[in-house]
């Protein structure tokens, strides 16, 4: 079994729509409403409901600390699921060129420069001359110089699996504008200009005019908008299509029957018809598979595509390897994030692709402490059932204020296998993190710190190495280590004697171990209290007097701590 790395996941408050929707006008759809089985009684007292990290719903609100953002205004945790994202920049991950959102609408969501992925292995494709030795001309700096070297047909080739485009009969006249050349080869888009591309395009490629989804869609759309114009000549829909808001409102007025004056306008004579020819975007399904069957017989399975290859193609329906085309890179985005409740921006990257800085980046790990887990003694690979083990949990305070921490765990973990959990020191203070010049101060004080740590350690433990209830295990300048003792449950399931079972009690669940049910996870409620600077809106420029004002702050959340796997003996 793979080794187990302890983890901490923190629950975002968006798991509980009952509290967020009542306080805000959050536009979360009803799918998030609590399921009928969940207890409703907890509305008035949410600290009371116990949190089960194994509940299927919990998966959607538990995140590692670094994934969580922080809203300064709401003073609350925000997660990738609940923030509202907005596009800042659209770019190609291969050439790193920015794409304007307007050209996205016309050109689609793929790079139209010469960026392609291998249809076989998705590695990057490079333009190469068929004549000479391989030359990766994609290196931007040298691009200008490569023109001096070979001419002749060019191909796209994959350095990872050695596939190249000549395998599907695709060669290019020039090493530039590959996207347009490939488009022509594949779809013969502008048929009037005889494409000057190398002559060996197989006939199957050129005769499929309007075979692409895009072409069929536009043919169909123009056909049906013409039909609509015939059907409703007065409405003038034909002029606008369906895309303009004016046309939409006109449609609405037609259907709502507000134009009462024009009764019986739609006479039976102007019935629309459906598309029935290729020029109208119609395509009959080819039910004759005999050629595919004979090809399969001839070339075997090796000539067929695998699911992933077919899925990553731009056009659907590829069945044989020779139908696989180079894949233009899907564009990627940089996105800013808004708090779902107050709509303030909580994360905003710089718009330039090459710039990795952020204009705004409010992350939760600057407020809430990180928790790291270490076994007290070097552990066996698996936890032994019913044998107590101790773990050291280290809380590190990122705030520049002293923080009081209160922890609570259920006495036993939820689920079929209840392990016993005891937090030996559920309440403690963490000293503030040092000022921004942390590293310098750290370096200078390193040796002093060690002394202090050593003293404190001895002081708290009184010389013994025994974990004591109510006492901190160890403390540093902004961190505290405490001990948690767990008694792992036994994973064996035995039906209790029938005599002991009460009438009407549900049948015990004796089904075999489910996935990860052997992982010991501790739900832990963390409550932080501190006195900090008065929080103000991002805009307000506070005067010196206000700056000094302090207020009591409080934050509470659930987290789940994965300790280890229990042995199945």
């Amino acid at each position, binding site marked *: 079994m793979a080794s187990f790395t302890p983890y901490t996941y923190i629950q975002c408050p968006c798991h509980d729509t009952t509290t967020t929707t009542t306080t805000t006008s959050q536009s979360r759809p009803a799918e998030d409403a609590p399921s009928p089985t969940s207890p409703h009684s907890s509305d008035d007292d949410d600290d009371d409901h116990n949190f089960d990290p194994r509940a299927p719903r919990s998966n959607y609100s538990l995140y590692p600390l*670094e994934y969580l*953002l922080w809203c300064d205004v709401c003073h609350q945790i925000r997660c990738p699921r609940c923030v509202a994202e907005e596009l800042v920049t659209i770019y190609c991950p291969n050439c790193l060129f920015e794409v304007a959102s307007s050209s996205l609408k016309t050109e689609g969501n793929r790079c139209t420069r010469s960026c392609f992925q291998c249809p076989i292995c998705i590695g*990057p494709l490079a333009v190469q001359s068929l004549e000479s030795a391989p030359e990766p001309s994609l290196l931007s700096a*040298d691009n200008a110089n490569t023109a001096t070297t070979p001419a002749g047909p060019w191909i796209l080739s994959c350095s990872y699996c050695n596939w190249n485009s000549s395998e599907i009969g695709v060669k290019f006249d020039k090493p530039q504008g590959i996207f347009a050349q490939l488009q022509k080869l594949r779809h013969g888009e502008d048929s009037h200009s005889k494409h000057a591309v190398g002559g060996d395009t197989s006939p199957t490629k050129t005769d499929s005019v309007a075979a692409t989804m895009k072409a069929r869609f536009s043919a169909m759309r123009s056909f049906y908008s013409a039909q609509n114009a015939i059907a409703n000549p007065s409405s003038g829909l034909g002029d606008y299509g369906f895309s303009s808001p004016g046309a939409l409102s006109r449609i609405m007025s037609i259907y709502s029957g507000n134009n009462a004056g024009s009764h019986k306008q739609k006479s039976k004579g102007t019935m629309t018809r459906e598309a029935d020819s290729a020029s109208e975007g119609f395509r009959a399904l080819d039910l004759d598979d005999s050629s595919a069957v004979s090809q399969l017989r001839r070339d075997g399975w090796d000539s067929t595509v695998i699911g992933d290859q077919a899925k990553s193609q731009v056009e659907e329906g590829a069945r044989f390897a020779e139908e696989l085309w180079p894949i233009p890179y899907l564009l990627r985005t940089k996105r800013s994030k808004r708090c779902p409740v107050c709509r303030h921006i909580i994360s905003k990257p710089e718009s330039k692709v090459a710039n*990795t800085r952020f204009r705004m980046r409010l992350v939760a790990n600057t407020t809430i402490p990180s928790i790291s887990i*270490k076994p007290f003694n070097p552990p066996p690979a698996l936890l032994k059932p019913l044998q107590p083990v101790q773990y050291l949990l280290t809380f590190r305070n990122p705030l520049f204020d002293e923080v009081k921490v209160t922890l609570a765990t259920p006495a036993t973990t939820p689920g079929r296998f209840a392990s016993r959990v005891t937090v030996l020191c559920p309440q403690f203070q963490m000293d503030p993190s040092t000022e921004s010049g942390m590293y310098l101060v750290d370096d200078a004080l390193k040796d002093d710190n060690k002394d202090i740590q050593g003293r404190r350690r001895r002081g708290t433990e009184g010389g013994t190495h025994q974990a004591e209830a109510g006492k901190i295990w160890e403390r540093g300048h902004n*961190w505290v280590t405490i001990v948690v003792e767990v008694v792992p449950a036994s994973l064996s399931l035995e039906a209790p004697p029938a005599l002991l079972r009460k009438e009407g009690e549900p049948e015990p669940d004796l089904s075999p171990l489910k996935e990860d049910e052997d992982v010991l996870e501790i739900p832990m409620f963390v409550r932080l209290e501190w006195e900090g600077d008065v929080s103000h809106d991002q805009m307000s420029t506070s005067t010196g007097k206000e700056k000094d004002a302090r207020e009591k702050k409080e934050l509470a959340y659930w987290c789940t701590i994965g300790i280890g796997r229990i042995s199945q003996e």
Partner: protein
Amino acid sequence: MSRKQVKGEYIETDTGNKVARKAILIGTQHIMLGGKTVIQAEAMIRGDLARTAQVPSSSGAAPGSNTAVAIGRYCFLSKGCCLRPPGRIYKGSFTYLPLRLGDHVFIGEGTVVQAATVGSHVHIGQKVVVGEFAIIKDYVRVLDGSVIPANMVIPSFSIVAGQPARIVGEVPEGGHEAFELRELYKSVGNNPQPLPV
């Protein structure tokens, strides 16, 4: 490299580099270290594979210098990794081109890097192969066992895995600081400091 200490596993230079005595540096005159970089035992840097043909470099290093491998500050080269400049045919003859690493670049055990450039704040896991002329931008995490094909470009804030490698995720906003290697730098050497808990 002036030796400050005679004993110890590492040679510590004036600029704070910690180079294991068992590290294999070939062609040191073509290797540039920015300082505060750790090179562990059996890590290999092929400085001998310097450029042979004279490429008119417009985007280049200082004239006259023929650096094969340039490494920034706070880089960490783990045991048994290998930095090897990429090579190709240029104007009919084969030549190597320089390999550049930014700052805070971690390279895992047994990993081979033949990239053209690796940006800053990059974590490359164990047993990874970075193919020739690959370009890795800033804040990229390459998971263990990945094979990055030659010429692949990996944009910033990508998490990359697989054979061949593909982008499998994004580095979260709260994960930027995890790329810092200052603490790790302090934790190795002839008098290592313990890593903070």
